[in-house]
């Protein structure tokens, strides 16, 4: 009871200046996270510099819950690279490997075909109806780096929202009740 009592007391004893300081420090945390994210977007040139692998279609290379770092440069796309792409009519981007590339003579436009390492056939079934090739604008970035397991945090939070609210609530309480 003692600890909770102390915390309640500390909430009661809040004065205006303290509340303001805490609001500012909370704001600092949120904005610095935003700055890091947007900064990464600028450096990597990709609209989402970090993605979480959601399916097992690239096993055993990438498992569900792994994190990939993306990079989007002007370099042409080549077969063997692992790209993240959006298909028209699908919301969730897909991470698969390029197996065929046809690059046009003058314009440099590319036709790309992808396949998941763990899938039996290529990705034409995943593409929009009648679409045979991916083009440059479908591709969000190519994977350059890899970190295992970390993505489970976001998978758990999106699939069990209650945990997310508990976590945010606990963090909020901590910020409010912390004295320093």
């Amino acid at each position, binding site marked *: 009871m003692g600890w909770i009592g102390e915390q309640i007391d500390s909430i009661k004893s809040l004065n205006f200046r303290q509340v303001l300081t805490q609001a500012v420090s909370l704001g600092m945390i949120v904005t610095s996270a935003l700055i890091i994210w947007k900064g990464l977007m600028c450096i990597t040139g990709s609209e989402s510099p970090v993605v979480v692998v959601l399916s097992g279609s690239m096993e055993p290379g*990438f498992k569900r819950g792994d994190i990939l770092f993306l990079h989007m440069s002007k370099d042409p796309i080549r*077969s063997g690279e*692992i790209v993240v792409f959006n298909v028209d009519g699908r919301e969730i981007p897909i991470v698969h490997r390029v197996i*065929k590339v*046809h690059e*046009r003579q003058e314009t440099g436009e590319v036709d790309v075909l992808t396949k998941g390492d763990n899938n039996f056939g290529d990705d034409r079934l995943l593409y929009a109806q009648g679409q045979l090739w991916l083009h440059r604008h479908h591709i969000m970035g190519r994977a*350059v780096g890899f970190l*295992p397991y970390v993505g489970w945090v976001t998978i758990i939070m999106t699939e069990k929202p209650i945990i997310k609210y508990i976590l945010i609530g606990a963090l909020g309480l901590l910020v409010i009740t912390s004295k320093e």
Partner: protein
Amino acid sequence: MHSFGYRANALLTFAITILALMCAIASVSDNFNSPSPTSQVQVLNINWFQKKPDGDDEVSLTLNISANLESLFTWNTKQVFVFLAAEYETPKNMLNQVSLWDGIIPSKEHAKFWIHTTNKYRFIDQGSNLRGKDFNLTLHWHVMPKTGKMFSDKIVMSGYRLPQLYR
């Protein structure tokens, strides 16, 4: 100041920092490995060679692929993805890369291999340019680390030519 929460927080931060540092060092250590892989590919037979009803050329090959990729493996290597691509130029396309065969090598013990196979993916051109076409066979590999940066390289083998006539 020295409350339980404060100490737990400090410990957690320290542990995560050390873990991140170790991952970074593991990834950096890959750069000290200078691999020297070797590979040989023979086209044993043109099984068939035809123009599809939609006008694109398609060819089926029997290949003999041998390679030694043992030197690519380090302690931070999870797997090596290896594939053989036919690469050629046509009047329409500056570059055509068509993957013919691929495989996943899970460990160093399997990195020296010899395989006799037909092409796993269809070898189809965009158009009808394959008769008498010179092409390269390129063995590409992509090293997937346990953590950190992925890297890749290739061996280009040139001097392959498709027949002048459909068969």
